[in-house]
């Protein structure tokens, strides 16, 4: 583990200038967090779907980045990412169809009004 409290200024500068795996992971983490935040707070069902897309893409970035920094070069990470994109596309199709049906049924697409499962 990196001991973040004993880093010197030079270390930080050095780390900022040389783009490496950690930067990609940081980007993915930020992207994921934004997606998660949106997922938890947005009312509209379309916005939440978009947020889910963000989180999926964060995962894709991770996959590609890890593949790039692996000792053995192949395309398994990228392949995985492509798969993920394809699945995400179909998921969006289904999700939007669902949103459409929900709008027809309820007259609104607010997630917090969909509480039919309330115990």
């Amino acid at each position, binding site marked *: 583990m990196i001991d973040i409290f004993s880093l010197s200024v030079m270390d930080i500068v050095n780390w900022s200038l040389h783009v490496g795996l950690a930067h990609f992971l940081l980007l993915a983490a930020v992207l994921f967090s934004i997606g998660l935040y949106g997922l*938890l707070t947005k009312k509209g069902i379309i916005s939440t779907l978009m947020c889910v897309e963000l989180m999926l893409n964060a995962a894709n970035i991770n996959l590609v980045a890890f593949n790039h920094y692996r000792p053995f070069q192949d395309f398994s990470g990228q392949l995985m990412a492509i798969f993920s994109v394809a699945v995400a596309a179909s998921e969006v199709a289904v999700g939007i169809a669902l949103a459409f049906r929900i709008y027809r049924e309820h007259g609104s697409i607010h*997630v917090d009004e*969909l*509480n039919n499962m309330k*115990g």
Partner: protein
Amino acid sequence: MSEFALTHAWLIPLLPALAFVVIGFFTRLDKSISAKIAISMISVSFLLALGVLAAVISGPITMDNPLIQKVLWAKMGTLELSMGVLVDPMTAMMLIVVTTVALLVQIYSVGYMEHDPGAGRFFAFLSLFASSMLGLVISVNFLQMYAFWELVGVCSYLLIGFYYYKISAREAAKKAFITTRIGDFGMLLGILLLQITFGTLDFMELKELVPAYIWISGTGFMTVVGLLLFIGPIGKSGQFPLHVWLPDAMEGPTPVSALIHAATMVVAGVYLVGRAYFIFSALPAVMTVIAWIGGFTAFFAATIAITQRPFKRILAYSTISQLGYMMLALGVGSLTASMFHLMTHAFFKALLFLCAGAVIEAMNEEADIFKMGGLRHRMPTTFKCMAVGVLAIAGVPPFAGFFSKDMILAAAAEVSMPLYLLAAATAFLTAFYMARLLFVAFFGEVREDCPAHETNSYMRMPLVVLAVLAVVSGAWGHFAGFGEWVYFGAVQEEHIDFMIAGSSVLLTLIAFALAYEIYVAKRFSAHLLAQRFGILYTLSYNKYYVDEFYTIVRNTFVDKLGAVLYWFDLHVVDGVVNGLAKGVGCLSCVFTALQNGQAQRYVAVFYCGVIVLVAYSVFCAVRILNLLGGAF
């Protein structure tokens, strides 16, 4: 033939049971076919019973050397329950009595039930009734006997309540069933105690074990067992505290009364005591109880019978009285006298009841004897048969009752003077009330509105046969040596004690003369006599208020106890159950609050969980890696 009958004695109860099944399932709606099936089956049983009787008389079978056939019925661990056939002279005698009376009653029923649409059902029940009693008679152990004992109870319930659309019949059926159940419960306890103590219920094995047990550990425990066992016969045979069901049992059709009172139901108790006599005879205290309950019942019922008005009720109380005689005979140690009286009583009481049926049918269901009169002109055959029955039950010399009653009186006189006096007084009362019945109903003037007419031949023929039996069975038993045949312990010698016989005949004749003076010659007014004996008459007419007493007991104890228990059930038992349910409901409130249907909340919780798991895996990475096997 007789050898075949002996080895196939199990067919005797099975054939009527078969008739029950066939009638019950297939031919119930067809009266004549049902009657034919029932009668043919019981006839075959009767022939088989005759064969058994012949084999027993001629063969090596005695009371001490019975023929036993057993099959294993159920096996539970070390507990083996068997069923089978036990044939000894007592069984053979009972088989003959039951099949004869059942056969004649069924033939009579063809005439009696001619216009009843439910006749098919009636014959099915009669067959089952006969079958249960025959099964009871041939039982090899207490369990088999208990099973058939209960079957007899069920059949009596079905038949007493045969006219189920009449409230009185329904009530009488329930009363009979519940009252006898009280006795059966005591008996069940006794049987269980026997099973626990001896590990067997087989009569033959118990016959060996019980005397040894009593010799080793005294009579204390066995007295309890004996008393419990005796409660069953008290209920079934209508002895004093539980006799109340028997007079009500006449709500059923009259042939059923004949069957219940004469051959099948009530003598089951006497028979049980006789079958288990090796237990009872070894317990002096129990024998005393049996003798006194029998003697008291005989006298008590006779005093009720002298004031009753309905034809069948007089006969019902006379049955209780005669059963008391049988119990008395058992209690004073004479199995022979008891069984002899059982046999003769079966014939003459069946005769009397069938006569009653004929009379009541002829009178268009009018049962009050004081509304009859002069019937001997209208129904000569019935009158002759009735007269034979009355003479037989009163104990006039050549008739059957004389021999058996004399034997009981002699046995009682040997043991205890008070019991003898009680029995002799009962004999007097018996002669009086039977004479009263006969004189009031059959003598005197014919009433103008009397619809009576002679009955059809189906009903006359059994009467004549039974009348013949009521004449000859006593003399036959006496001179053919019944006592050398059915006995317990030592062979009973046949002799007539002229002192006892003479005095009882004298008493009988006095009673007849008295009844004649009062009810035919009308030299004394019955009404004035009733007034003279005011309180006694009222007590007797109201059956000593036993039923009312039971009603009060039930109202005060059972109903109040029921109310208390109902409250307990409503508030305590239900309260506990409802409280539990409410508690669970409250607990579930906590968790239903979590289930609010908001998907985003779930996601948040889920994410928190993920954070916890990740944190755990980060801080405990080493341990997890070790867990994975150190591959990394």
